[in-house]
C-alpha cells in the first residue's frame, strides 16, 4: 500500500492539473460563444451564395466552363483546416483521418494546410505540404480566406491540380461537430436544388459565362470562409468538452485518492496504537 505521503503528493498534483483544465474549459467556453456568433453571422451570406450559384447553374446546364469540369491533372489539392493547439480531444486527428482514410495516392495529393497540428500530422505521414498558412487560424478574416483561396484556384486554373477538396470540422451545435470532406471544384450542386430555382427567368450582366467567372471564385471563397469560422467554433467546442471530461476525471481520481488516503491514515493510527499497547504490555 502506498504511503500517506505518496498519496497526498499525488492528490495535490492532480488537483493542480484540475485547476488548469478547469481554467482552460472556461477560456474555451468564452471563445466558443464568440466563434459561434460569428459562425451564425456568416450563414445568410453563404445561403444566398449557394442559392445564386445553383440557380445560375440550373439555367445554364449545358454551359461548359473550366470551373465546372475536372482538370486533366490527376492531382488533388486538399485544404485541411485543423487547429494550432492540441488538447482538444479527437478534433485534429479526426480531420487528418478523413484525408488519410480516402483511397488516394499520396503522390497525387497536395496539402494546403491551415492549422499546425494537421500540417505536422500529414507531413509525418509522408504527404506533400504545398502551403502552410497556419497563422490565419488565430483570427480568420474574409481576406485571409480569399488569399488562400486564390492560391488554390491559381493552381487549378494553371492545371497543376484537377480537383479541389476541403477537409474541416462542421459545427452542428455546441456538443456535436463532424469532420467533413467536401469537393470545392469542380462545382457540384444537388440535383434537387438545381430544379428548385428554375422558375424565374433570370438575366445576367455581363453574360452568364462571365458572371460565373466572377461568382464561382467568390462562392468557393465563401465556402472556405464559412469552413474556417466553423472550424474555429468546433475547435473550441471540442476543447471545451475535452477539458470538461478531464476536469471530471480529475475529480473522480481525487475522491478515490482521498478515500485511500483516509484508509492509510486510519491504518497508520491503528498500527501506532497497537505498537504502544504492545509496548505497555511488555513493560508491565
Amino acid at each position, binding site marked *: 500500500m502506498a504511503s500517506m505521503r505518496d498519496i497526498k503528493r499525488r492528490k495535490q498534483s492532480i488537483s493542480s492539473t484540475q485547476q488548469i483544465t478547469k481554467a482552460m474549459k472556461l477560456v474555451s467556453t468564452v471563445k466558443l460563444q464568440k466563434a459561434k456568433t460569428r459562425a451564425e453571422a*456568416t450563414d445568410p451570406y453563404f445561403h444566398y451564395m449557394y442559392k445564386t450559384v445553383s440557380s445560375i447553374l440550373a439555367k445554364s446546364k449545358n454551359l461548359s466552363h473550366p470551373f465546372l469540369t475536372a482538370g486533366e491533372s490527376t492531382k488533388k489539392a486538399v485544404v485541411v483546416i485543423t487547429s494550432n493547439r492540441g488538447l482538444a480531444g479527437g478534433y485534429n486527428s479526426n480531420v487528418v483521418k478523413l484525408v488519410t482514410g480516402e483511397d488516394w495516392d499520396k503522390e497525387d495529393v497536395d496539402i494546403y494546410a491551415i492549422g499546425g497540428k494537421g500540417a505536422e500530422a500529414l507531413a509525418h505521414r509522408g504527404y506533400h505540404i504545398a502551403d502552410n498558412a497556419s497563422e490565419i487560424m488565430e483570427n480568420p478574416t474574409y481576406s485571409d480566406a480569399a488569399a488562400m483561396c486564390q492560391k488554390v484556384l491559381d493552381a487549378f486554373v494553371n492545371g497543376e491540380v484537377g480537383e479541389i477538396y476541403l477537409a474541416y470540422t462542421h459545427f452542428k451545435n455546441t456538443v456535436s461537430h463532424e469532420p467533413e470532406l467536401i469537393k470545392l471544384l469542380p462545382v457540384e450542386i444537388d440535383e434537387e436544388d438545381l430544379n428548385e430555382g428554375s422558375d424565374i427567368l433570370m*438575366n445576367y450582366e455581363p453574360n452568364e459565362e462571365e458572371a460565373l467567372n466572377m461568382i464561382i471564385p467568390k462562392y468557393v471563397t465563401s465556402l472556405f470562409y464559412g469552413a474556417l469560422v466553423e472550424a474555429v467554433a468546433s475547435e473550441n467546442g471540442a476543447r471545451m468538452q475535452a477539458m470538461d471530461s478531464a476536469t471530471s476525471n480529475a475529480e473522480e481520481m481525487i475522491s478515490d485518492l482521498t478515500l485511500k488516503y483516509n484508509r492509510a491514515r486510519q491504518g497508520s493510527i491503528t498500527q501506532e496504537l497497537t505498537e504502544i499497547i504492545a509496548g505497555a504490555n511488555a513493560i508491565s
Partner: protein
Amino acid sequence: MAEANRVFEIEIITPDRVFYTGEADFLEFTTADGDVGIYKDHIPLTTVLAPGIVTIHNGDEVKQAAVHAGFAEILGDKVILLAELAEWPNEIDVERAEAAKARAEERLANHTADTDIVRAEFALRKALIRIDAARLK
C-alpha cells in the same frame, strides 16, 4: 413617404454580418458595366458589383454606404446585394483610407516589372470610394 406599392425589399449581406435589411423605393449602385438605378418590378437580373456607393432612397430618407466587390441579385420585389465588404460612412477611418490612397498612388507612379498593377489600381479605387463615402456623413 413612399407610396406603398412602389416599395421593395433590400438586403445587403456581407460574410461577417447582415449589413442592412429594409425597404426602399429607389436604389442606386455601381456595377461592373456602370451605375444602375433600380425601381420596383425591375426585370430579374444578376449582375457583378464594382466598388462604389450604394444609395438607398426611401421617400425623403436617403442612406448611403460604401460597397466593395460582390454581386447583386435583383428580383421584382426584392434586391439582394452580396458584398465582400460594406461600410457605413461613419465606420470609415478616413486617415487610413488617405494613407492607402497615397500608398497605391506611389506604387502606380514608380511601378517596376514586379508591381502588381491590377492590385494597386484596385486598392486605389477602394481607397477613393472610402474617402468619397466618408465625406457623405
